[in-house]
């Protein structure tokens, strides 16, 4: 990880305006991604972690989705929000690649793995099929798929789940992107395969120096992989810090609640029931005016119900959006 910022998100808001009302899925988030950094994005279902990441490449369906005015996503000095989808296509897969959650559905069943792997490569570099297949073979070999040359001719149904995820990672690496967005890539896999994929990602990071945005609701996975962690709640980043700092010294009540609700593997632990955060996340049909966590927060005071805290720095590089911390 270097100090060079390769992606800078400023005040990103995404809303879905439908005929029967709007959903404000992402509400003004800002963060920087450094070269070689692994950024973990955690939060519960529906907190906007996937939407905010997919919005970087406008991969959300628009309409009804809309990146609100005032949002900016800077990559190499260019604002991605302002680009047309034709211009943005040059970034998709080339500069920023996506690894999808479910390797079972993210492949076309009637096309060979090899043909799917080279599709983006041929599109972006305009090289021959033969050269592209050679590169695909090299990357499949690299991601630990044996007999890569023959496996390239296989169809996705002939791959196991873990192998498919490896193939998808290899596919994402084809164009040597500077950023990989990994959208819960281990959620659909069992734990042994999960740990193999995590090891693979660590190796890839070391080998290619790629920045990774790792979207997950699994705090354990993020702890083992990320350098920095953004905790999202109701479409906002409520806490952002270095991974160790965040896990050992959580400041936001929501982060504390999340970490407190992890199951303990300690048998002697007299904690009988799993702790949980009471209440439900807010329905995002209106713009956020008060602290979205206030209704579930034991430390909430009057001020929390009348204004929305913004993310501000506490101790070095530790950002929190809370009035009471």
């Amino acid at each position, binding site marked *: 990880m270097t100090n060079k910022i390769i992606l800078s998100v400023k005040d990103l808001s995404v809303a879905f305006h439908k005929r029967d009302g709007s959903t404000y899925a992402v509400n003004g988030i800002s963060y920087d991604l450094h070269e070689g950094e692994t950024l973990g994005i955690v939060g519960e279902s529906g907190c906007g972690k996937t939407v905010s990441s997919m919005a970087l490449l406008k991969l959300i369906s628009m309409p009804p989705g809309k990146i609100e005015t005032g949002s900016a996503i800077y990559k190499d000095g260019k604002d991605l929000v302002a680009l047309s989808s034709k211009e943005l296509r040059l970034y998709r*897969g080339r500069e920023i690649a996506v690894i999808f959650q479910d390797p079972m559905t993210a492949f076309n069943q009637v096309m060979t793995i090899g043909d799917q792997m080279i599709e983006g490569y041929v*599109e972006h570099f305009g090289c021959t099929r033969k050269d592209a297949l050679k590169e695909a073979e090299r990357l499949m070999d*690299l991601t*630990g*798929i044996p007999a890569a040359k023959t496996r390239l*001719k*296989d169809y996705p*149904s002939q791959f196991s789940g873990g192998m498919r995820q490896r193939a998808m990672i290899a596919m994402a690496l084809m164009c040597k992107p500077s950023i990989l967005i990994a959208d819960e890539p281990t959620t659909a896999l069992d734990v042994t395969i999960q740990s193999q994929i995590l090891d693979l990602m660590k190796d890839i990071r070391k080998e290619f120096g790629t920045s990774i945005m790792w979207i997950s609701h699994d705090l354990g996975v993020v702890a083992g992989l990320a350098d920095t962690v953004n905790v999202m709640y109701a479409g906002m980043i409520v806490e952002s810090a270095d991974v160790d700092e965040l896990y050992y010294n959580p400041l936001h009540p929501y982060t504390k609640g999340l970490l407190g609700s992890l199951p303990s593997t300690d048998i002697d632990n007299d904690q009988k029931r799993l702790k949980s955060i009471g209440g439900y996340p807010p329905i995002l049909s209106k713009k956020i005016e008060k602290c979205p966590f206030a209704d579930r927060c034991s430390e909430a005071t009057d001020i929390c119900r009348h204004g929305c805290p913004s993310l501000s720095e506490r101790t070095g590089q530790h950002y929190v959006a809370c009035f009471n911390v």
Partner: protein
Amino acid sequence: MTMGLFREKGIYEGASDAFASEGFWKKAVQRFFRHKLAVIGIVLLLIITLMSIFYPIIRDSSIAFEVNYTAINASPQSGNIMGTDALGRDVFMRLMLGGRVSLSVGLVAAICSTLIGITLGGIAGFFGGKIDNLIMRFTDTMMSFPFLVICMVLVSILGPGIGNTMLAIVLLKWTNAARITRGEILYIRERQFIEADKALGINRFKTLFAHIIPNALSPIIVNMTFTMADTIMTEASLSFLGLGVLLPTPTWGNMLKDASSLVTLSMRPWLWIPPGIMIALTVLSINFVGDGLRDALDPKANL
């Protein structure tokens, strides 16, 4: 230097032989031949087709047309294995020539109507919005006509004959293919691999031709076989009614017409049972083949 860097972590080493590399089409063929009825269907269809093509070549086909008053309404005998009709023409030869007409009308009309259906349904599904609405309402309108009546009107305007029969069928039969294509495309468009393709920066039309259409193809092919069976029956009905293919060109439909006379129906079964059986057998075989294709072309089937 990076080659095999992560290899030592590859748990799967050596396990690769367990997954023999076989293509989708090779597997599809295997699955098809495991389907017993489909195999029976294709064998029957092959026999019917080959006999229709080659029997009139091997034997002089003029016996199907030349009027022979010395042997009218003869029951099956050594010279005419299925007997002769009211004009002394050889029934078996007419049956084979009729097969040529019926099968080619079926095949050509099914292919043409499917192509029209794919084009219209594809445009509707892919572009969506107003275009979709326009095309699909037009399709609905076409479907709400009573088929046989419109067909009869069309043929009576255009005049009977093989070409016009095909044309009338094509103009009215594309609606199913259009609906199926549109439905498939709408479904596939929302699948994750299309999103993944978008994330790779592939342009829309390449996605349409490389991913969406191949995935939509199997239900369309299956539908085409059923359309073909349907078309053969339609041609038979029209010819039976005297609106399809005109005499003296034999088709199974106009051969059946003889059965409209009570004397024929009760006394001369060799005149109407063979074309009836041929129609039933052909349609049944095509439907079996269609069923087999449906199982064989299912992209999700692994075995």
